[in-house]
């Protein structure tokens, strides 16, 4: 893989990633397109620019780690990992099929280059804290990143870990909240509002960056800020749009967990041409 800081190239990868996500979920006939599309720029910026990693050497001890805590958005992770060369790109459309390495939620038994199996919400931040503590013990430059769903941070465990990381001055971890405003049953603000979410994380002692989660330059700047911030962890509140990139999916709760039809896919791919 070739890493790049070139925004136009990253945007091109993001567009291609969106196309693959929709194709694989349509082929599967089920899955979670909305929350996969909202996290595209976050993962593309991490994997193609920010993170130190080597697909040819996935167990390199000093690699940066990534955990997708909102495991149901695995189509975006699978696509980005495949584009990097970790896994076969031509098998993405086997998503959710028997025997596929692309399981319905991330599973390290099927893809050993994943850092963790996820799918039960609330655990990813704790996991990267463990990875961050291990790196600090080993005096390793390795850093760890987690993407959390917005609905996910309704889980109590997230706040246990949110309390833990600043207390331990864990500055080698970064949490990104994919704040796309929609969860399975509807709009987050109607189900269990997170606001004031920035103040919550600040009061727990985090370096909080509130940005446009679809702006690659804003993400690049935020990740640089996170790396430069010492003595406390960083959380990026990424303001995103559920279903981003496809007009009829954007801000539509229906597409949290429903696959597009063949006609919808065709229409979506035209928009992403």
């Amino acid at each position: 893989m070739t890493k790049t800081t070139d925004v136009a190239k990253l945007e091109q990868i993001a567009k291609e990633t969106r196309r693959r996500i929709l194709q694989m979920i349509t082929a599967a006939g089920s899955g979670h397109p909305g929350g996969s599309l909202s996290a595209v720029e976050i993962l593309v910026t991490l994997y193609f620019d920010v993170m130190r990693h080597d697909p040819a050497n996935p167990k390199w001890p000093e690699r940066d780690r990534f955990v997708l805590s909102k495991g149901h958005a695995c189509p975006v992770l699978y696509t980005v990992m495949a584009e990097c060369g970790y896994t076969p790109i031509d098998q993405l459309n086997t998503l959710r099929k028997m025997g596929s390495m692309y399981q319905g939620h991330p599973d390290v038994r099927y893809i050993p280059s994943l850092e963790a199996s996820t799918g039960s919400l609330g655990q990813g931040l704790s996991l990267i804290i463990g990875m961050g503590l291990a790196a600090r013990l080993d005096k390793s430059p390795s850093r760890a990143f987690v993407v959390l769903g917005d609905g996910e941070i309704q889980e109590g465990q997230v706040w246990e870990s949110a309390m833990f990381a600043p207390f331990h001055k864990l500055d080698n971890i970064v949490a990104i909240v994919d704040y796309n405003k929609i969860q399975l049953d509807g709009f987050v603000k109607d189900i269990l509002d997170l606001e004031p979410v920035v103040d919550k994380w600040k009061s727990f002692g985090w370096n909080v960056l509130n940005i446009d989660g679809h702006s690659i330059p804003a993400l690049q700047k935020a990740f640089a800020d996170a790396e430069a911030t010492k003595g406390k962890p960083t959380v990026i509140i990424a303001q995103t749009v559920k279903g981003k990139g496809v007009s009829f999916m954007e801000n539509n709760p229906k597409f949290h967990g429903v696959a597009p039809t063949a006609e919808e896919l065709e229409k979506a791919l035209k928009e992403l041409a």
Partner: protein
Amino acid sequence: MPVNAKFDLKPGAATREAFGKALVELGHANKDVVVCDADLSKSTYTSYFGKEFPDRFFECGIAEANMVAIGGGLAASGKIPFVSSFSVFLLNKGFEQIRVTSAFPHTNLKLVGTHSGISIGEDGPSQMSIEDISLACSLGGMTVISPADEFSMKALVHAAAAMFGPVFIRAGRAKAAIIYTADQKFEIGKGIELVKGSDVTLIGTGLLVAESIRAAETLESEGISARVIDIHTIKPLDRDIIAKAARETGAIVVSEEHLVDSGLGVRVAQAAAESTPCVMEFIGIQNTYAESGPPEALLKKYGLVAENVAAAARRAITRKKAG
């Protein structure tokens, strides 16, 4: 050799304290061993490790779910985390995290639950873990260990660290009668025949191993030859030693400080049913929760002492003879 010549069963250290000491040895032997506790380190004895290796000891506060998953993250980065709390909190509050960050991905996380059973005494039933064997055994790929005394605990903590994969170890608060010597060898998954016998087999785990030996002494004086087996590894279960006992003695009594419907007993019964079905009796806590009180008095009240085991053995033999 008479049963009582082999074991004096004098009170030894609690298995939780033996665990704490073994952790310190492990810490010296392997720099990848790290420990997490949830504000109970003085009671679980992980404080010994914390004092010796402060950099590798993570006090997580009263937040078991976070602690277990931090352990999962440490394991994913190549550490050998021992995550400890009272068993009742570790398994009940951390169960989902154990499942997702340890059992299902099969990570190298070691979980040690102390204060198991009702012998914790005065703290009462909210603190008494009598479902932990069931919960731990219900997880796919989990190894579940329940040592009977300080020597078995020490050896099995080392064995757990030496194997790859998730392990749950059950420890008690009360002093445990000494059964073994320091040179006894233990192998995970292999039960130990402590007393030879041909009329009935007494299978125990944890504190109930000593009670089973005491029961065998009583039975011996009545002319009954009771075999005694320590099942220190509940999962994977030593199916061979159970099949052999069922075949050779035709009657089995299983005793444990756990709810009787969901612990070692039902697993032994399954193993016997799949090899040589035989008459069985079960000693354990009957579909209830205990209360505050002195440990010895509680064990007696809830039917977990040698006389209960001996009575069950007599019942089993009577049933066996009745065919």
